[in-house]
């Protein structure tokens, strides 16, 4: 059986399951007005990454100086055949500005793979991916590997406008049915999406929902999962220190089953949490 993102976490091997890898940049180009796609050659340990996991990247210095801490970046593509990993990112701050300067042949220092990824329940037949903006990048590997395991995937892509819809081709190439909703025609409003998604569920029942990138979509996903009696997960983000569960900087509150809440580390206990644990923001 091929090693897929759905297989359980690998046991600690003779080497170390998490590596500080020096990856050669293959390409690093703009994909639209806001986002860039970086492809890097990765060693074996990095290629064991599972959907929803991330790498902690050492970002090159710019005129603004060397970003002191690493930056977490979720995995957009794991291409084991080519030995490559891909990251889809938006240039927003000092770290991502540094990443954008990397040219083919240069080296990216990537620590990983890190964190707990998506876990499809046994026997999942129809997956709903519900995401917005760069949040969709995180779920692209999930679509590919769900499809490989024989599950159908319906991906609902939300964006401000049609030209900013992310990951359309990647998700379609993974075999997902792609549905786009945008702010410009009002179709991305939760009250518009709910009857639409319910109709899709009536047509072919979903048994798992994955979401990322939007608090509105999280609340919609959790409401739908509850009313349909299915499970789901969300990938969360937080400013991080170490990425290895050591510094406790990246905590977020999660809801406990018996009531109450407690902090969990996004980098180590997550970044993927169940829809019932997650609290929105």
């Amino acid at each position, binding site marked *: 059986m091929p090693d897929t993102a759905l297989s359980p976490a690998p046991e*600690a091997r003779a080497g*170390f399951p998490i590596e500080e890898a020096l990856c050669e940049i293959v390409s690093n180009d703009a994909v639209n007005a806001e986002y860039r796609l970086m492809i890097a050659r990765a060693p074996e340990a990095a290629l064991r990454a599972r959907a929803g996991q991330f790498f902690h990247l*050492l970002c090159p210095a710019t005129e603004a100086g060397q970003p*002191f801490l*690493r930056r977490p970046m979720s995995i957009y593509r794991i291409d084991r055949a080519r030995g490559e990993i891909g990251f889809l990112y938006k240039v927003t701050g000092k770290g991502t500005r540094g990443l954008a300067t990397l040219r083919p042949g240069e080296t990216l220092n990537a620590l990983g793979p890190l964190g707990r990824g998506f876990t499809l329940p046994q026997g999942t037949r129809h997956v709903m991916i519900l995401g917005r903006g760069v949040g969709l990048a995180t779920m692209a590997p999930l679509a590919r590997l769900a499809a490989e395991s024989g599950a159908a995937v319906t991906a609902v892509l939300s964006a401000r406008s049609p030209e900013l819809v992310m990951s359309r081709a990647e998700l379609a190439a993974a075999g997902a049915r792609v549905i786009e909703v945008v702010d410009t025609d009002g179709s991305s409003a939760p009250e518009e999406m709910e009857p639409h998604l319910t109709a899709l569920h009536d047509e072919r029942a979903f048994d798992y929902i994955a979401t990322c990138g939007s608090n509105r979509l999280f609340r919609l996903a959790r409401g739908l999962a509850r009313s349909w009696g299915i499970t789901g997960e969300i990938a969360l983000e937080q400013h991080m*220190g*170490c990425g290895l569960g050591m510094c406790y900087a*990246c905590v977020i509150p999660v809801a406990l089953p018996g009531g109450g809440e407690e*902090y969990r580390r996004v980098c*180590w206990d997550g970044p993927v949490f169940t829809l019932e644990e997650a609290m929105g923001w």
Partner: protein
Amino acid sequence: MVSSTAPDLSVRIGSLTLKNPVMPASGTIAEGMTQVIDMGRLGAIVLKTITPDLRQGTLPPRVAEYRDATLFSIGIPSKGPDYLLEHTLPAYAACDAPLIASVSADTAEDFGKLAAYISDPRIAAIEANISCPNLKADGRAFGMDPEATREVIERMVAATRTPVWAKLTPNVGDITVFARVAEEAGAEALIVGNAILGMAVNAETMRPRLGNVMGGLTGPAVKPILLRMVHQCAKAVRIPVIGCGGITCGEDAVEYMLAGATAVQVGTANFIHPHTMTEAVDWIAEYCTRHGLSAAREITGALRPLHAPATAPTETV
């Protein structure tokens, strides 16, 4: 390659002998590190501070980044002593390095009780974290009051046969006062020291950058300050001083040792380069060889004077 002339890296910290002088600073490693490096190569493994009670820690955001420094406000989230004994210690059982616990509490009496409770053959020493800047209002800590420092260390020493180390705070006027007090109270070693109390503001949002407003400054930017304090403390006491503050490589570690440290703790660097500690061990060995030293302990306090005495020019009018 190990040759017969490989330098002896072992150092003595009170009643303990460590195979080399490099260990993590409390709160900067966790079980996750065992998946990246061989923790058994370290001189010791210092665990995250625990408190007698369960604590969630401070409100996020908990980290603000600076050039060559971070301001952390974590506030010692703790799962308590039973979790330490039942889960944390077994997680490092396979690592061939002594485990050092770290404790904090709200009263000197509770420091003593906690030290007694976790006295366990698997724990080689207990560090008294009397210096965390993120617990009390305005960053106050036991370690900012000499009498409170004395009481905490005396209570712990009386409560356990496990060696007690005192982690001092740099947020005081004359740190040597605290170094002497901790030595008199029975500490076998000093860690100099914890984070420097600081604050971060976001001009655009007009808000603090940390949920706790204040936090502890760490990273290479603080090294000159802690190096100075290590030098002062090493001259003030007979017990070993463990240097801690902005160490990012073996060369930094050697600088601390030259200034008087017997061993070092690596903190923030673990978050960025997880191989920092193991590479520092190798670098120290290479340094010893290059300088013709048969043992790393010869580095401690070997700082040479920059000038011969009385060679400064006479002041002229």
